[in-house]
């Protein structure tokens, strides 16, 4: 799945996910390459889907972090295999569920030579959590009760309530230099004032919004980074990225556009790696808006959605049709597989593609003669548009007249999230920011959250979500989540359509290790490595 802009901002918490890596579907192209060991001057040229308007720490999230975290290291990093690795923090202590104590590594310096201090960490926290901040991470920081320097190299964070997602939040927070930010108010991250960090790579140049060149930080405190330089480029759209790869000047394309995978893999000298993404395309119906406040209408629509056709048309089949808005594997990771599989199968009953059943439901609804509705889709994600057109054709058969409106992301957000001025029917893609299974669920069922397009929630669900936060037992967590999804499924506020794949196409002389849906949250030089 691909939507370059804005990237997965609606990302949430996580857990580990080695189980998630269903497999490397990498096309085992000719293994003729002798695969010489990485030499010192190896550069990595990467195509990523999008660039932020600025490399300011507050403006980077999602894919952007892949570059950001190479410059500004977090205190604790997420390793490609899903484990957490202390980096700028030497150690982490968790005295209780809502308190974290980080001990900073000593002797670390920024690339300008100045030493890393607790002031820098405090400054970074403040950057993201101060009142009125523009930071994408503000909401994740909202649960902080206090952040204090409790010793020379010690930071203590107290949360208002336990937050299973906190480690992921910390792993996404690259530490910036307080002095540097003070010196350049409001302009850090621009071409003239590039970011300054302690990470394995440092900025060589930023050129006009579409290129970022990093070079190795030779004074890096840790192991010598693999590549001499890593260059990122974000062509204007999927098509341009395909063309770019064809030009042969790049080593890899990450988050490759799925509808173009066949074209991409036909380019000689490149291999495909494809894994399921923790993301869901769904059709959501705003239960507060007529006629979608009528469950019969929602059931009718659920039966009218040809999910197979949508997967085929929108993603050329690169994904899996799903009965739930969270990939089953994520829940299975918490415990037994059987209950999850049974539940998901039962969810499918209301989702069968059956136009006759749909017509029957509609005939029995408050709008037996059908109605007209506008579906908003994001211009940046062509898959949504294709799905909406298929939806329109199916719904036309039962008398619902769908007009598809393609709008830019800003309009999409403002009309559906802020103003709620849509007609109530949305084709929508929703991605997890982390492998925490409750991440997507909480967003989908919390009133006022962007993920809750349906404006659907029940007291029971809210209660279950709350209980999940302090529940430490995985099996119990699994049960809580399954209960939530069952409750929701009964009301059909949404039609889960499919989970897309996430793909990388990489040159022959490189190999992909531990590629996951969250590749961007880990060091890319540890995911894409020279063939041994």
């Amino acid at each position, binding site marked *: 799945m691909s939507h370059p802009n804005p990237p997965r*901002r609606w990302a949430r918490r996580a857990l580990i996910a080695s189980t998630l890596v269903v497999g490397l579907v990498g096309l085992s192209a000719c293994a003729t390459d002798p695969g010489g060991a990485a030499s010192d001057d190896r550069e990595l040229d990467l195509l990523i889907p999008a660039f932020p308007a600025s490399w*300011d720490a507050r403006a980077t999230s999602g894919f952007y972090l892949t570059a950001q975290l190479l410059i500004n290291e977090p205190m604790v990093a997420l390793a490609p295999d899903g484990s957490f690795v202390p980096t700028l923090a030497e150690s982490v202590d968790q005295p209780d569920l809502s308190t974290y104590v980080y001990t900073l590594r000593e002797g670390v310096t920024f690339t300008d030579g100045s030493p890393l201090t607790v002031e820098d960490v405090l400054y970074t926290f403040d950057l993201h959590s101060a009142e*009125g901040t523009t930071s994408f991470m503000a*909401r*994740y920081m909202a649960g902080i009760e206090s952040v204090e320097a409790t010793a020379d190299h010690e930071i203590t964070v107290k949360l208002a309530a336990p937050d299973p997602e906190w480690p992921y939040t910390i792993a996404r927070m690259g530490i910036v230099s307080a002095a540097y930010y003070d010196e350049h108010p409001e302009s850090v991250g*621009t*071409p003239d004032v590039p970011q300054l960090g302690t990470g394995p790579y440092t900025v060589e140049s930023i050129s006009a919004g579409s290129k970022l060149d990093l070079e190795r930080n030779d004074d890096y405190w840790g192991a010598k980074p693999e590549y001499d330089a890593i260059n990122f480029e974000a*062509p204007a759209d999927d098509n341009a990225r395909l063309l770019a790869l064809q*030009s042969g000047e790049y080593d890899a394309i990450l988050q490759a556009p799925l509808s173009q995978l066949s074209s991409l893999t036909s380019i000689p000298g490149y291999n495909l790696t494809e894994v399921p993404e923790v993301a869901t395309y769904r059709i959501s119906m705003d239960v507060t808006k007529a006629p979608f406040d009528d469950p019969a209408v929602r059931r009718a629509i659920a039966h009218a959605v040809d999910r197979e056709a949508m997967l085929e048309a929108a993603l050329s089949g690169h994904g899996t049709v799903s009965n739930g808005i969270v990939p089953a594997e994520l829940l299975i990771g918490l415990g037994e597989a059987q209950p999850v599989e049974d539940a998901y199968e039962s969810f499918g009953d209301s989702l069968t593609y059956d136009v006759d059943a749909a017509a029957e439901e509609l005939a029995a609804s408050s709008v037996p003669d059908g109605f007209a509705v506008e579906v908003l889709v994001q211009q940046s994600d062509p898959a949504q548009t294709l799905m909406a057109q298929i939806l329109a054709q199916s719904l036309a058969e039962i008398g619902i007249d769908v007009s598809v409106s393609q709008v830019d992301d*800003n309009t999409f957000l403002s009309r559906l999230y802020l103003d709620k001025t849509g007609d109530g029917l949305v084709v929508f893609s929703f991605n997890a920011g982390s492998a925490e299974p409750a991440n997507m669920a909480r967003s989908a069922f919390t009133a006022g959250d962007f993920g809750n397009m349906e404006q659907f929630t029940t007291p029971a669900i809210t209660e279950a979500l709350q209980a999940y936060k302090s529940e430490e037992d995985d099996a119990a967590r699994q049960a809580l989540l399954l209960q939530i999804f069952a409750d929701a499924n009964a009301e059909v506020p949404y039609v889960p359509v499919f989970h897309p794949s996430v793909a990388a196409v990489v040159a022959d002389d490189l190999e992909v290790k531990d590629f996951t849906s969250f590749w961007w949250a880990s060091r890319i030089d540890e995911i894409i490595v020279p063939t041994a």
Partner: protein
Amino acid sequence: MSAPAAISAASETGVVASQRRPKARRSSTGIVLRLILTRLLTSLIVLFVVTFVIFLFVHAAPGGPELALAGVDATPEQLAAIRAAYHLDDPLVLQYFRFISGALGGDLGASITMREPVITVVSRAATSVTLPLIVMAWMLSVIPGVTLGYLSARKRGSITDRVILTATILGATAPVFAVGMFVSYVFGIQLGWLPFLGAGDGGLDTLRHLVLPAVTIAVVLLASATRVSRVRFIQVIEEDQYTFARARGLSRSYLWTRVVLKNAAVHLITWSGSLVIGLIAGLIIVEQIYGLPGIGTLLIKAIGSRDIPLIQGITLLIAIGVVLINLVVDLLCIWVDPRIRKGMEVER
């Protein structure tokens, strides 16, 4: 044929030059100054109207820069705080006044999303991509275009002329995006002669990356240049002055440079000015197709993120560019044509 136009026009109003009141005779510098001043004054109004209209539309549009800044995870309070920080909730008139007073002082404000002064952002995009692209496209089209127009005009009616004519109709009509896709597909992808994506690493590499985009624009402009210059050349050739110059035994080079080119110049200058103006929209499309980080791409991005200062700044700078081009065109015409210097109406 009726009596010569000049005569009938004179007898129409019964006026000859000698009857002008002597004091009414203005100096030519005065006329030129007046022309420039009037032009600048009108331009100021134009700029005012343009920016205001764009300003209104951007404000009426759904969404705002705060969404681009803080994303979907932002809380309503956070969004409100951002709006307040950028004065987005102030009365429109006040906001516009702030913008225009800043602009009059040369300050276009800072881009909200890019956190840099608008001037910096725009001039970077302009100098690294857009201006070289315009210059390259202009040179690739006007010079060969006028040459082709010359050939075509000299051999009018011949096979060469007809081939050139037919080809130019095709070139001048094909939409720039169709040409762009064709050129990038054939010369970039299939033949692999030149890069077709991005602006390269600066310097010569950037120039290399600009060749195909420039060719794309030039295809359209070249056709138009050929047609316009051909028509104008033939017009001059059919004028009495050309025959008279020929009848005096003047050389071919004199005929072409001093008579044809010189008399066509005002027309060609005016035309090539309007061409550059008409090219602006085409530039946006070409920059999109070739993934060039120029002003067009910047504008599209700014629109997407509702970066109001940036949108305002870009449109204002484009409008200023248009005004400047028009001014340069006027001055060049004044320089070439003494009749304009003397305040006479001349058909361009």
